[in-house]
Every structure is written in C-alpha cells, then in structure tokens.
C-alpha cells in the first residue's frame, strides 16, 4: 500500500501527521511530507486508512504498490 498527497487540495489541517506520523511528516509551514515516498510500512495499513478517512480536504488517496511505478 502506498499513499499519495494532493498538495493542491491540502490546507495543512495536519490530521494525517497526528494520526500516522510513521507515514506523514510535516514541514516548518505545517505542510505534510511523505516518509518513505508514501510507501506504508507493514502493519500500518489501518493507520494509513484512518489518515485518509480523516482528511477534511480529501487530499490523500491510496494505491496498491502494483499500481505505482515503483511496483
């Protein structure tokens, strides 16, 4: 599982960083930064799903690794 950020939609609510800091870091302006290029570490799929489901701006989506260029 891999997460993608839409930085046009994101307004820095920081819900993803609060819920899943193993997947999302945050910069000095409070904007999210993907750790591991968004690849979700094993066992953290539920946290990734919660981060997605709590984004007020619908700025996060998930793709399966097989869908992405990194495979």
């Amino acid at each position: 599982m891999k997460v993608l950020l839409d930085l046009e939609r994101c307004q820095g609510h920081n819900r993803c960083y609060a819920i899943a800091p193993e997947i999302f870091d945050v910069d000095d302006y409070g904007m999210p930064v993907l750790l591991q290029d968004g690849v979700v570490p094993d066992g953290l799929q539920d946290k990734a799903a919660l981060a997605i489901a709590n984004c007020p701006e619908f700025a996060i989506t998930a793709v399966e690794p097989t869908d992405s260029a990194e495979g």
Partner: protein
Amino acid sequence: MTSIYGPVADWATDFDHAEPEYNANAHEVWKELRGTCPVAHTDRYEGAWLPVTHEHVSQIAYDTEHFTSRSVVVTTYRPLAEAPVGNAPPISSDPPFHRDARRILLPAFSPKAIEPMEKDVRALCRSLLFDMVEAAAANGGIVDAAVQYAQHIPVSVISLMLGFPAEDAELFRGFVHDVVEGVNVGLDQRFAAFQRLGEYIEQQVLEHIENPRDDLTTYLLNAKIGDEPLTVGHVRGSIVLLLIAGIDTTWSAIGSSLLHLATHPDDRSRLVAEPELMPTAIEELLRVYAPVTMARLVKADVEIGGCPMKVDDWVLLPFPAANVDPAAFERADEVLIDRAENRHLAFGLGIHRCLGSNLARLEVRVAVEEFLAAFPDFELAGPEGVTWSVGQIRGPRTLPVRINA
C-alpha cells in the same frame, strides 16, 4: 449593549445569529432549516444569508471567485477596507495576497512549533484546577467550568505568544466581546469599541518597538513579504487577528466539551477508563460542538441553493451546522467518542483553514485531560445555570458543575 433589531420572528426569513435564542437552540434551528429552508435569509444587517447544509457551506468556503473574506464577522457595519488585504490579514484577505500574509504566520502555528507548548498549557490547567479544588470545597462542591477554567486557558496562552501583559486578560476578553458579540449594536458603539482596541494595540506595538523580544509581535514588526516590510496596518491587523481569534473560540470548545461530559455520564466514565480514546473523542466533540461560524461578503452575484446572492450581501458559514448534516455524517446528531472516520469542518475548509488549529486542539485536549484527572466524576449543577455566548462563536459562558467526590 443592546440589539437594534429585537427578537426573531421567523428563522427562515428573519434570522439573527446574535439574538440569544440562536446559540442556545442552534442544533434545533439548523435541523428545522435543513428540512424547510436550507438557505435562510434576513433583512437585518442590510441583508444576510444562512446556508445550513454541508454541501452549500463547503461550496462557499471553496469559492473565492464569488465570495470575499474582506469581513468575516456579520455586523451592522460593512468595513470599507479594500480586498485583497482587509482589516486583519490573513483572515480578511483574498487571493493572491492571502497566501503571502498567511505564510508569514504558518511557522509559528505549525505542529512542531506548537508541540513544545504542551507542558506550559498543562501546568496552567493544573494551577487553575488546584484553585478550583479549594473553591469547590468552599462552595458545596459547585464550580463554574467556564468562568473558573475554560475562559482563562486561551487568554494566558495568546498573551504569552504575543508578549502582552498577562494581567490584561480581562481587557482581552472585553475586546473579544466587543468584536464578536457586540455585532447588532449602533455604529457609534461599534466604532468606540474598535477605537479602544486600536489604542491598546498601538500601545503594545510601541512598547515592542522600544523593547524588541522573542514573541509574535516583534516577529511581525520585522516580517517581510519579498523584500518589503509589512505595512503598519498589516502588522496591527494581524495582531488584532491573533489576539481575537484564539480566545473565545478555544474557550467555547473547552466549555462545550465539558458541558457534554457533565451531561453524558457514560461518555465521561468511558473516557476516564479508556484515555486512549481521547484523540477521537476530542475530534468528535469538535465536530458536534464546533464553536466557529465564519462569514463572507458576496463579491460577484451568484446563486446558491436557488437563492440569488447579490454583491455585498453577507453570507454566514456555519461550519457547526455542516458538521451535523446527516447528508455528510452517519448518525450525525450523536456524539460517538470512538468515531474513527471524521472529516469534520470545525476548523473550516479551503484556504482559510484555521491557522491556530494545532494550538486549539492542544489546548482543548490538555484542558479536558486535566479536568478529568482532577474531577473524574462531575455533573451539571442545573441546566438553568448554563448561559451561551451570542454571535458567530458558540459556547457556554457559565457552566456550573457539581464535583462528586
């Protein structure tokens, strides 16, 4: 201060968000309007609209083409300050200027800047609670969770951040009352209130120019957009914003959360027993009791929900009403402290997302945690003792609770 309008005749055609019965009955008013007239109107304030559905509130929040943020508080006075800067940047600013004005302040309110403040907020809460234990003992177990607790927390935090004297707390609450509650008064009263606020800010700014130090006021005095220092009006406007925006909003969120726990013993005892639920509980309390309704002025004629909105009409953005719209949330009327999926709009949507949301969340969470640690068992001392704020910020202003040993 007395209203120039008087009691509301009908919520769909004559609403007034600053009449006391609005905030006291907000959930019932929104529910009634959702079923009958989802975009209400009033001729008060020279014309204002009140959309109550999640769909319309988010549509307007995202639409900076037809709506300006030049003024975000619906009052008897439409400010003359020109877009895109407005009177209190960045909340009063429109694109593209908004982005630069906001970027100046974002670092001070980013998660990593706010996290280290937790120990100070906790110490402040504990010190207030220490005094309340004594007060309760002297008063038959009754304390006021709004007056003796909630109202003090954000005032102390923001005076520290701005570098303003902590002993001016009562003065700050007076300014907040004038700006956000004294909205349906005569213009002379409104201008006098703004003059008092302006003179105070001027005095603090001059003091900071003489004695610069590590606080937000000094930071704004030295801030630049590109190579240009901020204008005098920009600096003072941003200070007004920081002083006003975080006080009664956070105070309201803390008060409403404690009111819920005082009246829902199952949620209260579950939260005491399962403190790991605190993160979802706080988000759920913010959803259902969101304190902040924003406003816009119409910039270009537009139709919303079949209603013709004309240039310079006011439009309220009741995020709290959107948050309890069953079209957007399952079991929208219920508080589920373990609600896992919660895309609530308590801090707004779009480019004006509340700048202080990380600080507000920290204050609300720590305030509730510490209150429950000091008083794990408490209940409302009597519903007649609860009074509500008036205007766009909704929360209890008196909240007598009985502490059970």
